[in-house]
């Protein structure tokens, strides 16, 4: 500290702000201007401000209404074929016309939603339940259990989803050739779920590894909480956000995967009304060049639904962004 200048240089003289203009507040007062808000509530508030959420929610809502009450949109029977009307263009009451077999294209698109959405929904539930259970156990308990689960997950992860499901389904087809509509859906769900769970396992495991080292886990241990209650009460709930985001996006992807399998003729049997089957049936129209429109209806519905879920996943991901949550 120099003693050379007794007087500070210009602009650095002693300055004191008027005290009444800079009132002092109590340190650490509680801001009660807004009602209490949990993280989920806050994320929900964020979500509601996002137009992407409203667009995707509207799309999904429309699809769900179609699934639950197809009768609202058409009173035609999707399983009634009239070969005499094969490939007839649209006419009144039949806006999409008829396909090669003489089915009403629009009615089939409406009724096809049920199988597609059901497969997507059930597969996602299966994958999330399996993934969280395995991922949480592997990440939380560690050791040989972790090695075992992680290696098994790696093996399944290495097999491409569609290829694995293809093989799996052909095995099921051979063993249970007659399994009905619901049985067919369960078979596709099983096949997709079997090769889809490692993705969630990995995400859940990573998240659990992060959460389990946080101080509130130690605090709970010091209270005397058992490992299991710690896992169920603290670790898993705090690991959910990224799992939810992935699950939302993958719902759309599983719907597409089902359609792909059905298109290849190995997913849902032809007796089941589904977008994949209809796209498969309509592919001949591309080759012949006749009435390509038949293809666009189920394909458009498929794209619309998948897009809805993928957009929702995007919006949810923004709302649950862990970076935003940290402070």
């Amino acid at each position, binding site marked *: *500290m*120099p003693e*050379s*200048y007794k*007087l*500070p*240089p*210009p*602009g*650095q*003289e*002693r*300055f*004191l*702000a008027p*005290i009444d*203009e*800079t009132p*002092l*507040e109590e*340190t*650490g007062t*509680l*801001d*009660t201007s807004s009602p*209490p*808000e*949990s*993280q*989920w509530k*806050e994320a929900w508030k964020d979500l509601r401000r996002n137009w992407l959420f409203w667009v995707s929610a509207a799309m999904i809502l429309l699809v769900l209404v179609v699934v639950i009450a197809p009768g609202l949109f058409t009173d035609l029977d999707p399983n009634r074929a009239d070969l005499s009307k094969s490939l007839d263009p649209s006419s009144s009451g039949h806006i999409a016309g008829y396909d090669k077999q003489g089915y009403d294209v629009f009615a089939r698109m409406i009724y096809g939603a049920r199988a597609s959405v059901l497969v997507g929904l059930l597969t996602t539930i299966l994958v999330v339940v399996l993934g969280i259970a395995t991922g949480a156990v592997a990440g939380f308990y560690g050791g040989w259990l972790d090695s075992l689960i992680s290696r098994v997950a790696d093996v399944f992860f290495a097999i491409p989803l569609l290829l694995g499901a293809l093989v799996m389904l052909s095995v099921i087809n051979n063993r249970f050739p007659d399994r009905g509509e619901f049985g067919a859906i369960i078979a596709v769900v099983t096949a997709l779920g079997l090769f889809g769970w490692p993705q969630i396992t990995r995400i859940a495991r990573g998240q659990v590894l992060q959460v389990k080292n*946080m*101080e*509130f886990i*130690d*605090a*709970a*241990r*010091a*209270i*005397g*909480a058992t490992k299991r*209650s710690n896992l169920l009460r*603290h670790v898993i*709930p*705090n690991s959910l956000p990224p799992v939810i985001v992935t699950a939302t996006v993958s719902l759309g992807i599983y719907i597409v995967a089902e359609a792909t399998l059905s298109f290849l003729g190995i997913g849902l049997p032809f007796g089941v009304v589904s977008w994949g089957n209809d796209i498969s049936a309509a592919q001949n129209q591309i080759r012949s060049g006749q009435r390509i429109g038949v293809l666009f209806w189920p394909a458009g519905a498929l794209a619309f639904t998948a897009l809805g879920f993928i957009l929702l996943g995007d919006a949810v991901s923004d709302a649950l962004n862990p970076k935003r*949550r*940290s*402070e």
Partner: protein
Amino acid sequence: MTTPVHEIPVLEIKDLQVAFRAGKKLIPAVRGASLMVYPGQTVAIVGESGSGKSTTAHAVIDLLPGTGVITGGQILFEGRDIAGAKKSDILALRGSSIGLVPQDPMTNLNPLWRVGTQIKEALVANDIATGKDADRRVVELLEEAGLPDAESRARQFPHEFSGGMRQRALIAMGLAARPKLLIADEPTSALDVTVQKQILDHLDSLTDELGVAVLLITHDLGLAAERADHLVVMYKGQVVESGPAREILQDPRHPYTKRLVSSAPSLASQRLSSERARIQIKEQAVQTAAEIAEEVATHDDEFGEGQQTVVEAKGLTKDFVLRGGRPGSSTAFRAVDDVSFKLARGTTTAIVGESGSGKSTVARMVLGLLDATSGTVEFDGVDIMTLSSKKQQLALRRQMQPVFQNPYASLDPLYSIYRSIEEPLRTHHIGTDKERETRIRDLLDKVSLPAAVMRRFPNELSGGQRQRVAIARALALEPEVVILDEAVSALDVLVQAQILNLLNDLQAELGLSYLFITHDLAVVRQIADNVLVMQNGKVVETSTVSTVFDSPREEYTRRLLDAIPGGSIPLAT
């Protein structure tokens, strides 16, 4: 450091207004701040987090976060207004005329690039040197920043550097282009005190030598007063007081500055409660414990009688197994080596040391969260590691509770404050719902929080409030011992002072015994009775607080004491 009186200031900030955009609203962050920095001078901006000190500094180099905008005022750099200047003009200034030493050395170096390459980038970007010349210059700069063996260090990656070394590398980078002004934004708050002192000493001598003006941003008034010629105190976005550093410290006029001066741990010198009160607390605690012990003597799961010593560690040792160079091979790393101490009932024992000294590992072993490799921890004469039954372990949990360092991580973000404090009661099946609620209100009152906090969530509370909640949770089971693991280290000085006062009051009221883990000797003086100084896993000095401060035996302890910023400045009282 002689400053010619009549010169143009390097930096002049006039009535600066900065706001952050939130939706369509503008939230003011800096309101009419003015300050001047003369060539070769060190000017410090002091304030708590949220005071606008960093925002002011970042406005100078146009590094405000995306939503920040300058809404008024002028920033004159060598007489030229740069507040509204074009992006390209500011880019030309950045690095070459104004250097920056950022806050966190851990995240401000690219982990994939060699340290030398990153400094070279600064040279090349500012057209100082290229090719071989630049390589040579990098080594010189690193040497200048005080890194030994600079030539090989330049070829290393950031992960091979310690925190202090990284900060030196960042200083080398900030000074690479010989700027006229260096902005140092909390340059050492992430470092240990001893490293902090070394770095600041070095920065001081280097900037003196080069004639670089320094704008130092810090929350530590002691540090600012020690290093700066001129102090600017900011509070809620406004400059509340400024002037020559020593004058401000010895004669603070604004109530906020007064509060800062009285709270700074480095400047305070006394135990918060008097010697006589301390003895009373201790006797009371021993007596109460004896009474309780008599009452429950018939229970076999309770712990022994009210002895003087509540916790005793004997020869605690912990080895961690590190993976070796080849698969399957491993080496042992001794984190804690033969640590023994006694915690007397109703008193506070502090364990002090730098990061990596093993102090937190000791705390975790005492808590029973980590198994010791060898040695024992006795609670009221009972070895906690021999407790086998669930019932006994739960009984121990009720006696010993922790409060951790990071107020942002020590509460489950998904739990309301009510649920967080209720958790220990629920786990131990204490009381009915109604009784628990009364108890929680009571606990919140004890830690001076309004009952309205109950329904809130951790993300809505400030750091200090969360730490109060963590203390309330620790007290829910009416423990005898509370283990405070760096419990105040992450808090602003003012909040820190509040929490320390609270801890002291609670100790007097409830007869608690504290094991206080910290890296900050200044805080120790305010709260502890006895001190354990740890270095590299070993205890190097054990004694009472006054002995350590008045006549430290060990060289290492002396170094820790010297490192307390502002300790040498006399206060007018």
